[in-house]
């Protein structure tokens, strides 16, 4: 039963990963990428790491890929131009792909030689096991990762936030602080005279 599910899910992951790079329309590529993420979450559930699976869906599918899609949809893409640079990137892309493949092989062979895989060592659930190491042994690294993300966020804001002159802005405090008597004045208009 589990084996059948594994083969179905991994076939879907590999196929959608293939479609990510072969789809002609970049929006379709992102949609296939989302499919690959979601199915990988299914694989994680299958080995018993349900907490990681849910995090994968929440963070990557629910947030990161939405922003991807957001950006890709708004781009105006010339497909002919996109195809031209393919050979230039072939060498660099090939090296990166080979490095990733080697890493996966090393990890996989380590797991195979190390015996059975345990998604939640020394705890009841996956979430327990993760939090027990994350907030004790690796607390410093965990917090450093958070600081790095914070700096990246601040950098993005600093790079994109420009204060341009001659731009009309709304002052929210003034808007919400407005009272009726500041804005509305009742006048008794006589017929034929106007104000």
């Amino acid at each position, binding site marked *: 039963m589990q084996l059948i599910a594994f083969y179905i899910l991994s076939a879907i992951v590999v196929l959608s990963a293939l479609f990510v790079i072969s789809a002609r329309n970049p929006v379709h590529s992102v949609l296939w990428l989302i499919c690959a993420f979601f199915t990988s979450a299914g694989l994680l559930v299958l080995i018993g790491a349900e907490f990681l699976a*849910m995090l994968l869906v929440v963070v990557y599918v629910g947030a990161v890929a939405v922003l991807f899609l957001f950006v890709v949809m708004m781009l105006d893409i010339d497909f002919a131009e996109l195809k031209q640079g393919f050979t230039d990137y072939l060498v660099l892309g090939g090296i990166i792909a080979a490095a990733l493949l080697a890493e996966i092989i090393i990890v996989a062979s380590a797991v195979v030689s190390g015996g059975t895989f345990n998604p939640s060592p020394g705890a009841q659930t996956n979430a327990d096991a993760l939090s027990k190491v994350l907030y004790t042994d690796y607390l410093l690294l965990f917090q450093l990762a958070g600081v790095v993300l914070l700096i990246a966020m601040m950098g993005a804001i600093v790079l994109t936030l420009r204060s341009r002159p001659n731009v009309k802005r709304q002052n929210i405090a003034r808007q919400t602080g407005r009272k009726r008597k500041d804005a509305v004045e009742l006048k008794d208009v006589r017929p034929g005279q106007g104000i």
Partner: protein
Amino acid sequence: MEYLFKLGGGMWGGIGLAVLQILGLVVVLLVSIAFLLLMDRKVWAAVQLRKGPNVVGPFGLFQSFADLFKFVLKEIVIPAGANKTVFLLAPILTLTLALVGWAVIPVAPGWVIANLNVGILYLFAISSLGVYGIIMGGWASNSKYPFLGGLRSAAQMVSYEVSIGFVIVTVLLLVGSLNLTDIVNAQAGGIWHWNAFLLTPDKIALFPVMFAMFVVFFISALAETNRPPFDLPEAESELVAGYQVEYSSTPYLLFMIGEYVNIVLMCAMLTILFFGGWHMPIPIPTTGMPDWLVSLGGLLVFAVKVTFFFFLFAMVKAIVPRYRYDQLMRLGWKIFLPTSLVAVVLVSAYVVFVRPVAGT
């Protein structure tokens, strides 16, 4: 699952029983949504001193079914420039994701299709996927208004998800479990134990925090389901109908049902997280009663609470004017996010320093 295998006599019998359960839940859910939809329109009409739908059947009770047939029998129009696959995939995805979320909702003691250990995370994950149906629909229509609606919804739903996440974290810290059944059972014993009204002596310090979180969750749920006053993705005075402009017939119907299933799902989440799930406001001793009676009573209480929240959703729709886009973003990022973040700090400080969670 093992229980079902035993009950159904082997694997295939167990799978058959599970499918029957799922079908039962979906049918009950869709039929109740038909009536909730009518209630929505009736409440809306009553606020505006109209009668609402009252022609089809007694009191207009069969209006939703008449609408269903009308939608199904119409022609499906696909715009010439549309991306056909994605265009049709979007409404299907919306409805599927909305229904899939119900798999972990415990509607009565022991009545749940999948009692996941990470149930609440699953719900959060599924509800965060809901945005795809709208973005895909808006993009695939290949038209200006739908595209603008889709972009608005993407920004809006991602923003409000953040505060929903933090509100869920406060409840998790308080209960100490990710399992929805455990969350409901932690609120047993009367209205003063519910997370929205914590009035027991040991937790009364948290009452203002949790009540504020309840309000934040309710408002974020409105934004997450694109209900008024946050219905900017389909703001009819600006975008005609937003991402649904090009949809007709059954695809539109799927969008609409998906939206309502999502709304009821959010009502169920409010019930489970803050209103004690299937527990009565005043505890009634159930010793000696048969199990099915207790479960049925629980289901009834749960349904009443969900309907109450749906009534609130309908009232908000009828009463509150639509937000401006910058106000919406300001509310999400500058008010709800800091508030819920402070609440997470307060609740975790309380859990660590004042009342250690049982079992740790």
